[in-house]
């Protein structure tokens, strides 16, 4: 049975590097994904992820276990992302891939998905990335934490140090603006209009 985060953290505090590396292995992809979606640059997201784990390792003794280890990591990551955005003094950039490799695409296709569907899905993903990059940082972060990391409203409020109602407002406003940007980008509706509630 795999060790819990708390067990690994306790062993890491005792100087067990392997335990800390297990935590890294467990959380590196979510942390990278969070950084990538907040700042929108692959290379910088990788740097942020790496710096997150370095800082976590150095500050491990200061981790009191009041929050979940993952929440603590998220907080470090978001602080680093905020620093990055401040340094850049600009909105995150939605990266456009240099080219589309059809063979690579085909290997990523779902069993019932044609290449055309997959290309359309990738195009839509890029449109979403561009629309997300246009959102204010607070709204984008709230959407990323809720949508892609499945945090509860309360967890997001704790992470962002804001009231619960603010989180919900940011989510609502962010989704509305996003919807508007996507419509302007020509993204078509995926649902039938009569399928409500």
């Amino acid at each position: 049975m795999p060790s819990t985060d708390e067990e690994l953290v306790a062993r890491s505090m005792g100087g067990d590097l392997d335990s800390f590396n297990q935590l890294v292995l467990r959380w590196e992809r979510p942390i990278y994904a969070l950084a990538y979606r907040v700042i929108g640059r692959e290379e910088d997201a990788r740097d942020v992820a790496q710096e997150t784990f370095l800082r976590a390792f150095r500050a491990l003794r200061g981790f009191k276990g009041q929050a979940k280890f993952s929440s603590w990591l998220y907080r470090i990551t978001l602080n680093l992302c905020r620093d990055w955005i401040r340094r850049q003094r600009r909105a995150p950039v939605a990266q456009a891939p240099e080219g589309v490799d059809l063979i690579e695409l085909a290997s990523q296709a779902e069993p019932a998905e044609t290449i055309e569907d997959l290309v359309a899905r990738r195009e839509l993903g890029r449109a979403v990335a561009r629309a997300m990059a246009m959102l204010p940082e607070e709204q984008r972060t709230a959407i990323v934490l809720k949508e892609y990391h499945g945090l509860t409203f309360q967890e997001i409020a704790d992470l962002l140090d804001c009231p619960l109602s603010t989180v919900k407002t940011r989510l609502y406003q962010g989704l509305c603006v996003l919807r508007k940007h996507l419509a302007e980008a020509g993204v078509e509706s995926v649902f039938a209009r009569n399928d409500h509630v």
Partner: protein
Amino acid sequence: MIMCNKEQLVGYLYDDLPAEERAAFEGHVAACARCRQELFELRETRQHLATWAPPEPEFTFQVVQSARAEAAPPRPRFAMFPRWALAAAAGVLVAAGAAAIANIEVRHDANGFVVRTGWASDAPLDGPAGPGVVAERPISADARSAAVADPGPAGQLRAEVAALAQRVAEMEQADLQLARTGAPPRSGISPAELRKILAESESRQRTEMAMRFQQIWNDFNAARASDFVRVQQAVAPELQRQGRLLENVIYRNSGQR
């Protein structure tokens, strides 16, 4: 009937409402076309969001201690380089690191392979300076800590030399004070003797450094020669085969004529 409430709408959208509130909101939505439409559109936006995936990262972070890092197997990307190239790279790194510490002069001329060392100085010395000349001024605390911070053998030796130099300076100061008060000089190692020890220590370090460098050079040459032989062995049969093919073609062409 409740009024349109955006916070409730978001809670309902993410299925994060208490049962009672949820039932009330469903009752509202059934009667409110505007909220129904908004809920539909936000669900659609969430569907769109699901298509955005970050690029698959090609990394695995790992926290390692320096000793472990040295013992870790080389990364596969280095596998494409021949051993002699790696030996050369290692040699350059060692030389660069050592040069940064000890002012190494490396020369390859008619007299052969020459390595000369002398301790680096951060600022001009008060007295004459050069290889083998010890600084007359006291070694600064920064220089001592920098020497101690360097964990390698050169760093240790440098720290020893720095400590000895510091001791010489202290003894000179003490002797000067004794001379001023008219007291006889104390017994023990004199500053001159300590100077001699320092000079010997530095000389030993120079010799060791030269030997190490020579060893790296020898390893590099041996690995290069070995790789060259292996390349020849791999390529020679193919060259012979190509030669035979060419001879056949020439033979056939001459027969056709």
